[in-house]
Every structure is written in C-alpha cells, then in structure tokens.
C-alpha cells in the first residue's frame, strides 16, 4: 500500500435496504480497494446490528450532486407553489393508511 494507506483507496457510497419492500437508503460511505471489498466492508460497518437485507455500493465519483451555488434556481421556485402539494383533497371516509 506504499505508505499512503486508505488515501489510495477510492470512496464508496453505501445504500442499505432495511426490509423487503422498502427502498435502499443511503447509510454512509467507506473506503475499499474495489467493489467486492466495499460490499464486505459495508456489511461489517452498516449491517452488524441486523439493519439490512440488501446492500448497494456505488463509487462516490459516480454520484452527480447539485451544488449549493445552484440552490436558488433549483429549489427556491417550488417554495411558493403550495398547489403542488396534495393538500386540497377531501379524504373520503374509510380510507386508511393515508
């Protein structure tokens, strides 16, 4: 590892599905030399208290993120459009789980 330790290992984002039927949720990130090892590290770091039934690992470099500079054009316009929220419906009686 030529002395520079985990600095040489790429970063991976870890997504864990906690139960069947739920979607994978971001759990954190870790260093690993390759995808196979990243899966194993993720198993040890994020599922040791039986938090998961399935794991995805994704190279952090593959994630394209919105930047804080773009916050206003991205998110501000939706702030004053309450009609986009589904709050103008009468909920019929008897509908459960809503």
């Amino acid at each position, binding site marked *: *590892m030529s002395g520079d330790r985990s600095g040489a290992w790429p970063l991976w984002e870890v997504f864990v599905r906690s139960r069947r039927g739920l979607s994978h949720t971001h759990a954190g990130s870790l260093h*690993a030399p390759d995808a*196979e090892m990243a899966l194993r*590290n993720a198993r*040890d770091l994020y599922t*040791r208290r039986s938090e998961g039934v399935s794991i995805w690992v994704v190279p952090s470099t593959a994630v394209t993120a919105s930047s804080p500079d773009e916050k206003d054009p991205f998110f501000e316009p939706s702030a004053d459009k309450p009609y986009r929220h589904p709050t103008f419906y009468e909920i019929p009686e008897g509908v459960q789980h809503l």
Partner: protein
Amino acid sequence: MTAALALGDDALVLSHRLGEWAGHAPVLEEEVALANIALDLLGQARVLLSLAGDEDELAYLREERAFRNVQLVEQPNGDFAHTIARQLCFSTYQELLYERLARGGGPFAPLAAKAVKEVAYHRDHAEHWTLRLGDGTADSHERMRTALEALWRFTGELFEPVEGCEVEWDTLHADWLDRLTSVLKRATLEVPEGPRRGAWAAGAGRQGVHTESFGRMLAEMQHLHRSHPGATW
C-alpha cells in the same frame, strides 16, 4: 470434555489475537472487520467452554499448559498478510469441521449449525484478501508468501483427531488442502512445501504444549480477572 475444550480454546485464543488489531489495523474498515470476526469467535468460545465447565474460570484462571488450542491460532499477528494467512488456514478448517459437526447430530451440532454461517464469512474475508495480496503488488505477494511459509508447519496439527468429535479427519484434511490449493493458485501463490507433521516446533497444542508467545498473550488476557477477581462493570 476434551472436544469442547479444544474447539473452545481455538475460538477463544484466535478471538483474542484478532482483538489485538483494535487500534492497529491498516485501515479503519479492516479494523471493524477483524473485530467482528473476533466477536463471532468469542461467542462460539463462550458456548463451547460452557459445555466444558465455568467459562470464566476456564478462560481466565487456567495455566498455559491447560489450554488445548492448536498452536496455529496462538501465533502472533505479525503483519497484515500474516494475520490473513492464519485466518485462511484456520477458517477454512473450521468451516469444514463445523459443517461436519452440524450434520453429525452430536453435542456440538446446534452450535456448529449456527456458527458455520459466521465462519463461512470469515473464510470469505480471508480468501478475498489472499487473492488481493497474493495477486497484488510485488511487496504484498512476497509478504503473503512469507507468511504462508512461516505458518505452514502449524497446519498439520489441525487434522489430529480430537476425542469426542465424530469426524472423518482424513477427508477433512483432503478437502482443506483442495480448497487451499485452489485459492492459492488463483492468488498466484504456491502451496508451501515444508513439513507439516512431526516438525520440531509444531503440533502439540492439543496436549497443552504451546509456543513462546502464547504465555505473554495469556498474561495480558488474564491479567484483569486475576488482579480483580469477579470484577464487573
């Protein structure tokens, strides 16, 4: 019960050795992985030693000569490759042994059936690292080769029959060698040629004869309990 002590001591001693990596592992992720494996082994040791007597007394108050673990598991951690080589040799053996004990239906079947899943992961962990170190850089290959050479003479003892384990030891040995050969080949490593039985220093752990570093390890492991008997927190 001879077998419970032998298998329990294997798990206990290797667990302590792996625990020594805490705070010293090459990377944080690997430190957690090794600690997980150590905790799995500690859980197995508690069940097995409880079958043989009082687990705390057995773990903390026995003298070196009363321990029945194989000498392989007490070997010092060395560098990371050394630890991986020890893990590869032992977890491959332990998985094959527990598979057989689980099928056999004897007193160890319930434990073995549960623990074999843990051990399969330990073996998988060791195999993946063996492949990466063996087929990695010139330095990692050399370290892995050196580690296997150094530990090889301690592997013969794994297949000495243990009284109370109804297992076909010869086929266990053959399966172990097959598996190890295949992993080492994929890792571009050679199966060491050195002697494994009857060598001068190796192979009497089951009779209570241990190697030099074991006494020091035991002193550290037992120190707290001996200084403060019955201490709890």
